[in-house]
């Protein structure tokens, strides 16, 4: 059987790449190591009858523009409003922060141009922020309410810029052709049009540490701590680490829609789109070798011993795995191997899944069900302390919990009246000193439950089943180097043209015919399926 292209990995990016290639008439096979598609975005059964929609449980970065390119709405993708986030606090009601994004601006998805959608975004943000000012933020501090308005307005202004940066290939590092120069000029022009004042502000705040930036804006410690968390979860950094503010802007300035059914629903839509376009998807088909012959990508050999040949291979596994494991060591020049060895991919977040026989109820807010809860110490320094442990290869004694209760919006995930809870617990280093022994696993799970219990006293009584996935487990289960959820730490020097490595920044690698389209490439880090799309586009352009 002759193939035009092979895609390694049937995660969100692999499926997107396959859909794009097949839609262009290429004969494509997607090879998935596991028994099911979806990778980190796929549904996980934690106990018979209980499922969570994805290890990565935040689909808030999916861009309607990207979805439109694959016509995912025709394949069942449905948008919904982002639920509010509850910033829990010990001995207090906490602060309920309005979710960023509603279905209101589906404009892109309908093929409407960005600006139209953005205009709606702005209006939406205005309304949302106003609501917040009147709401719980304002109740804490008038000053913070005003700051919140400014903050959301700044993000709304940034959105079109960041959205276009994150959904197109990074700029050429050293412009070779007139086309490259033109592209650079165009991008420069975009910054120009953005306005000197706003651009200066962007350049000022992007390299900052998230704690400094939020401290400038807000005076309520709980608000600063709660808003800072998304900037550092899954990174090897704390809120006082320079550059983390870039992560915040990227996380907050995206369209911010949510999907009915969460990441798993996205995977389902992508799978339908890929199959409809004629892509072949094979599960339980682990790639052991990626063949490079005469300096070009030639094909792969599966665990079964079967060999598949294709002149184009798009690897959506993490870049280190592709170049340091799948390609036989020694095949490539040391200089290239070194480039990939240097990628920092240290996992720092563990996953805890709970199956509950009833709703997760917080003592501070009896009778209310929340989809999205953040539990930290209440001060940004507590988050930093949680990070400090990682520097010494220790586990945080007081982990930060990023909690989703998907069964609130999607009761089908658990038996009637029951619930599932999906928790990202930070920090838990992949390379913990002494390794992830049974004792250490038990201790960490205990500290997570104890932290949760402080806010939800009944939770233990409700537990039907529980599961801890340390970065080491994630590495083993999902072939994820270092258990790094983003296929490479989000850091200033691992973004844009530096992601995953300078020689592969625009998806084509230094091996002709081999493309990197996983989260480790530009546009990735979280559920976006942009790298897969752009890698496929790069392959088609050749």
């Amino acid at each position, binding site marked *: 059987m002759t193939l035009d292209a092979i895609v390694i990995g049937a995660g969100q990016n692999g499926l997107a790449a396959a859909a794009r290639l097949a839609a262009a008439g290429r004969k494509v096979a997607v090879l998935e190591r596991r028994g099911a598609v979806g990778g980190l975005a796929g549904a996980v059964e934690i106990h018979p009858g209980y499922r969570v929609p994805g290890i990565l449980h935040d689909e808030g970065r999916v861009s309607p523009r990207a979805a439109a390119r694959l016509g995912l709405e025709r394949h069942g993708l449905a948008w919904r409003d982002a639920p509010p986030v509850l910033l829990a606090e010990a001995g207090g009601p906490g602060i309920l922060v309005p979710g960023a994004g509603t279905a209101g601006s589906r404009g892109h998805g309908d093929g409407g141009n960005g600006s139209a959608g953005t205009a709606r975004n702005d209006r939406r943000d205005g309304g949302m922020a106003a609501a917040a000012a009147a709401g719980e933020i304002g109740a804490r501090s008038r000053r913070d309410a005003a700051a919140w308005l400014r903050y959301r307005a700044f993000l709304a202004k940034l959105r079109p810029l960041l959205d276009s940066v994150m959904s197109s290939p990074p700029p050429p590092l050293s412009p070779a052709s007139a086309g490259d120069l033109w592209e650079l000029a165009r991008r420069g022009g975009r910054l120009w049009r953005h306005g000197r004042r706003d651009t*200066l502000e962007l350049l000022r705040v992007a390299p900052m540490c998230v704690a400094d930036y939020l401290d400038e804006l807000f005076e309520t410690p709980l608000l600063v701590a709660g808003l800072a968390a998304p900037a550092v979860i899954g990174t090897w950094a704390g809120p006082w680490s320079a550059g983390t503010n870039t992560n915040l802007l990227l996380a907050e300035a995206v369209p911010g829609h949510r999907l009915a059914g969460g990441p798993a629903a996205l995977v389902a839509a992508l799978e339908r789109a890929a199959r409809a376009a004629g892509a072949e998807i094979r599960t339980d088909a682990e790639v052991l070798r990626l063949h490079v012959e005469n300096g070009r990508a030639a094909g792969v050999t599966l665990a079964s011993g079967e060999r598949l040949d294709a002149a184009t291979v798009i690897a959506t596994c993490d870049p280190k795995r592709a170049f340091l494991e799948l390609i036989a060591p020694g095949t490539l020049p040391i200089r290239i191997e070194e480039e990939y060895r240097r990628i920092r991919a240290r996992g720092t977040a563990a996953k805890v899944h709970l199956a509950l026989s009833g709703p997760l109820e917080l003592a501070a807010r009896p009778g209310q069900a929340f989809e999205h809860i953040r539990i930290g110490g209440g001060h940004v320094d507590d988050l930093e302390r949680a990070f400090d442990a990682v520097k010494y290869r220790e586990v945080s004694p007081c982990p930060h919990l990023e909690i989703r209760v998907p069964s609130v919006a999607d009761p089908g995930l658990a038996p009637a009246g029951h619930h599932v809870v999906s928790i990202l617990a930070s920090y838990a280093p992949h390379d913990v000193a002494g390794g992830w022994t049974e004792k250490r696993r038990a201790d960490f799970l205990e500290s997570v439950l104890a932290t949760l219990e402080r806010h939800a006293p009944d939770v233990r009584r409700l537990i039907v089943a529980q599961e801890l996935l340390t970065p080491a487990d994630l590495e083993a289960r999902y072939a994820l180097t270092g258990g790094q959820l983003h296929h490479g730490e989000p850091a200033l*020097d691992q973004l844009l043209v530096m992601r995953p490595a300078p020689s592969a920044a625009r998806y084509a690698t230094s091996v002709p015919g081999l493309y990197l389209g996983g989260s480790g490439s530009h546009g990735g880090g979280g559920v976006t399926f942009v790298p897969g799309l752009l890698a496929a586009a790069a392959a088609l352009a050749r």
Partner: protein
Amino acid sequence: MNAHAGESRPAPARGPYDAVVVGAGHNGLICAAYLAKAGRKVLVVERRRQVGGATTTEEIHPGFKFSCCSYVVSLLRPWIIRDLDLPRYGYEVLPLEETFTPFEDGSYLLRDSDPERTKRAIARFSPRDAEVYKQFGQKMAELGRLVKPMIDGLAPDPLARNPFELLRLARFARHVRGQGEEWLIGNVKMMTMSAVDFLSEWFECEQLIAPMSVSGIIGTFLGVRSPGTAYVLLHHYMGEIDGSYRAWGLPKGGTGAIAEAIAAAARALGVEIRLGAPVERLLMKHGRATGVVLENGDEIAAKVVVSGVDPHRTFLRLVGEEHLEPEFAQQVKRFKMRGSSGKVNLALDALPELACLPGAGPQLRGDITIAPSIEYLERAYDDAKYGAFSRRPFMDIVIPSLTDPTVAPPGKHTMSIFVQYAPYKLKEGAADWPRQREAFGDAVIDTLAQYMPNLPGRILHRQVLTPWDLEQVYGLTEGNIFHGELSLEQLAFQRPVPGWSRYRTPIGHLWMCASGTHPGGGIMGAPGALCARTMLRARAV
């Protein structure tokens, strides 16, 4: 060295002045000298009884002269030394060749100017690192080619609109492109990585990475693992003493001698320097600066006022918030000036001995770095993050009297200890520093005694300078030795305030010439000289 040279000369005729410079630190003096060189009539007013600001030598114990604050020189721009003919006025730098690092297990690493010896020393820890060490130095010197034009000229304005600026940008872009992609990538990494991550791409042994990484954190409130600390490493490979590439040197007679030399050069050019003349505020008329008012009430009129003090002092004290646009005032307040380091100066009646390598050899002659491991440095940083001084701090130690015997009585010695971290804002508040000062000094001596057991017994006198003291005595806001942190968002066109990096200020006829402006801190002199050049080009004076 005459600390009161100011009074020893007949006071020249007074006013009217073209420019009055506030603060006789090295930048203020350099700026004044360049203006006078162009024929302008310049007065420098200094709060203290001696010139130099933080570039100072003081006799804090009879017969012992200390560079109390800044203690080594590296980056003073060669063209400034030439322009002002400083050697003629006593400027002389004695090179520091060695860097010695003792480790907790009793081993040590001595790096000096002899590549072969250094290579052998490193090879004891890692033959591989010994091989790359020299390459690394060459690589860094290459990378330095990006920064050099930047510190010797105005900060490029990436959002320039006017044709001249665009031309400058284009030229800069060509310069960058000419260096090739690999070089560009190197610089991107340099500007965005942490010192440890950057060094780890080259080296494997911590005994080399830890002591090298500290040059990325000196004077900042960052850890060696904080992104943005890598680029400061460059400065160690751009240091130029008498033209030749070399890291660091000791000014003969202490850093104060540099200030004295610049002051002498300035006076020879006709600059008038008034000491013991603290400025209370700016004279303003119609939102423009027209001169200064001294604390004794004297009013000094001048066409322009040049501030040689830090941005906070300049705008929030001398100008006063009421004269500022609210947004600008807020931007100034946002400019981070968190002091993170202190100084301990010791007068010794004899040389101390290193337990790991006894004797008075090269190990004591250069600088001695207490940075035994990355974890050690990170833990020191963690203490400071939460508002306490490091119980086990990073230290950079020099014994100047070994290189320059003139600073201590025969047989006796001076020891200068730069200590990090010492956060200005303690948990208990900055005002608690006087209460914690001696405890801080004890932590330093105790830590050092692990490596130099006989040190405590040889101390004749101890001066402890906390960030709070640096603010009180030298007028450095929050004790920040660079007039503002050298963090990514506070550099180049963003220093001190985005869009105001060209020494101009929103206040008419008020200019800035000190470390709080591009290209920043250290005894570099570039801000003072570039400010003067810019003023003259703009015919502002």
